[in-house]
């Protein structure tokens, strides 16, 4: 496998201070060098990260990297951008070169590249396995995805969910055509809680599930990978092809810092949450209980294990996912999964 080592940066870089910020340099572009100091100190570069969602446990490695000065030591001044109501803003803005990095979903990276020619690549896997799952109230008594026959499954507009449910039902021996899929947009939880649908696809095991169970609604959860869906990366970090090609050093610097942040997160998850919370100050009091459960669920899914580097991506995974998606009609044209990702530091 290709590995991105958590290469420690030169201690000298730690001296770089944000005070030298070279203006609002267009992210991802080569910044103006402040000639005199260029040799000794790395110039500070402004980069932006568009989150996939509001800051939650999954992002704590980034906030740790920020808090502990790892970005700064790499000469980076990182701004986190709030995700939009429109979840595809991040990928589009990175594709257009307006923002440097974004967190996004592996299958959608393939869609963006294959179907819409959006020039982005994945540079590291953050969550290495699906969080997405089919969930239903326990009281429905579903034993297998097959029981969804004749039932209604709600999903949030994203076509991937159609493919996931089809694959799962089929693999469990059912007839996917007998499942009614209903587009319920963003109200996943209320739809289940008020029995407007029998099950939902598109909810996350570290979020919707935790929240629903906290409300006293016990759930039956079917994980896609248990029912014929290839294991995919729920969350990856993307950047523009141009940045990946022409500014590899920037990408690597960013990922080095991020990986150090993840190491800290793994070491002390509670502290990670503290930092996350601190970065949002009093503005958005997080639900500590939910986030703690979430981080416990996330950590094993984020850690590649076996001493492999954080974020490492397997070409096999990309190929399998691409193949499955193609089979489901989600991808058109020439996919080339190997070109959809780079290995930062590799």
């Amino acid at each position: 496998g290709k590995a991105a080592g958590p290469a420690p940066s030169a201690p000298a870089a730690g001296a770089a201070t944000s005070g030298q910020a070279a203006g609002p340099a267009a992210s991802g572009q080569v910044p103006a060098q402040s000639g005199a100091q260029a040799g000794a100190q790395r110039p500070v570069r402004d980069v932006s990260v568009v989150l996939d969602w509001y800051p939650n446990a999954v992002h704590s490695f980034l906030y740790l990297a920020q808090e502990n000065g790892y970005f700064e030591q790499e000469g980076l001044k990182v701004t986190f951008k709030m995700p939009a109501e429109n979840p595809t803003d991040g990928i589009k803005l990175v594709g257009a070169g307006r923002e440097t990095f974004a967190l996004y979903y592996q299958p959608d990276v393939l869609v963006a590249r294959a179907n819409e020619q959006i020039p982005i690549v994945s540079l590291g896997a953050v969550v290495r396995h699906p969080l997405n799952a089919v969930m239903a109230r326990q009281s429905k008594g579903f034993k297998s995805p097959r029981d969804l026959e004749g039932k209604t499954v709600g999903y949030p507009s994203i076509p991937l969910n159609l493919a996931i449910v089809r694959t799962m039902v089929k693999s469990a021996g059912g007839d996917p055509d007998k499942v009614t899929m209903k587009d319920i947009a963003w109200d996943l939880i209320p739809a289940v809680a008020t029995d407007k649908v029998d099950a939902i696809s598109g909810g996350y095991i570290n979020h919707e599930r935790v929240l629903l169970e906290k409300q006293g609604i016990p759930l039956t959860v079917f994980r896609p990978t248990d029912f014929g869906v290839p294991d995919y990366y729920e969350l990856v970090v993307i950047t523009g092809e141009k940045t990946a090609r022409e500014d590899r050093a920037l990408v690597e610097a960013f990922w080095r810092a991020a990986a150090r942040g993840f190491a800290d997160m793994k070491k002390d998850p509670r502290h990670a949450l503290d930092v996350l919370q601190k970065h949002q100050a009093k503005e958005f009091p997080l639900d500590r209980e939910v986030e703690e459960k979430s981080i416990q669920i996330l950590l094993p899914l984020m850690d590649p294990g076996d001493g492999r580097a954080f974020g490492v991506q397997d070409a096999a995974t990309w190929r399998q996912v691409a193949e499955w998606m193609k089979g489901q009609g989600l991808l058109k044209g020439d996919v080339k999964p190997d070109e959809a990702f780079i290995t930062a530091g590799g």
Partner: protein
Amino acid sequence: MTGGGLARQWAPPALLMAGLLAAWEAGCRLLRVPAFILPPPSAVAAALWEMREPLFRVHLPVTALEVAVGFVASGVVGVALAAAMRLSPHLARALYPLVVASQTIPVIAISPVFLLWFGYTLTQKVAVTVLISFFTVTVNTYDGLRSADPDLVDLLRAAGATRWQIFTRAEVPSALPLFFSGLKVAAAVSVIGATIGEWLGGEAGLGVFGRRMVSSLRAAPLFASVFLLSLLGIGFFLLIAWVERWAIPWHFREVQGRRSA
């Protein structure tokens, strides 16, 4: 009107429109605006043609129905509220803040409530449309009802007219011009109301279509659906403007008698 007159009247706007489209197309190409962010009109047109079947057969009729029902309901609710508020100052003082507040509530915040009450039905879309469109009708009609010529009202009062007679004979006709201004706004806004209603969940409609296209990053079909939404809005707007001319001819007298027959 002569053919020449018609051409003189419509040539400039047609030219402007063509110019705008050309600028958009050129802008996209020259400035290299990525097509996944802002597709050029040619791509939108192509998508419109390519997707004509689902767009025109499936989604447009669904949304048009929602808009029509929602718009009519907005008009009814808007007028009823304005009338109630005009007839009872107590009610006005009590309701006005609530009516204003209703406009500041993000639909997404109460979408679960909508869902709970209405499910994924036409009613739900109509309810969202009403929430978004009734306000301008209410404010305009209420202000219109208050704009009756006081001397005329006095004439009626002196003659012993009841509150209701004053309302129907003097205040309602006086309110019509403002009412129609509000109604025209509501006609356009109803379209976005139905769209938002569809975002809260639904199987068909231009809003659902658009949302799917957003999710699958397909900008050209998305803009094609937005284009149809705009046509729908303009259509409803023109319809009301036409009804207005027909319903309150006295308000448009300026055109009369200006030229000799």
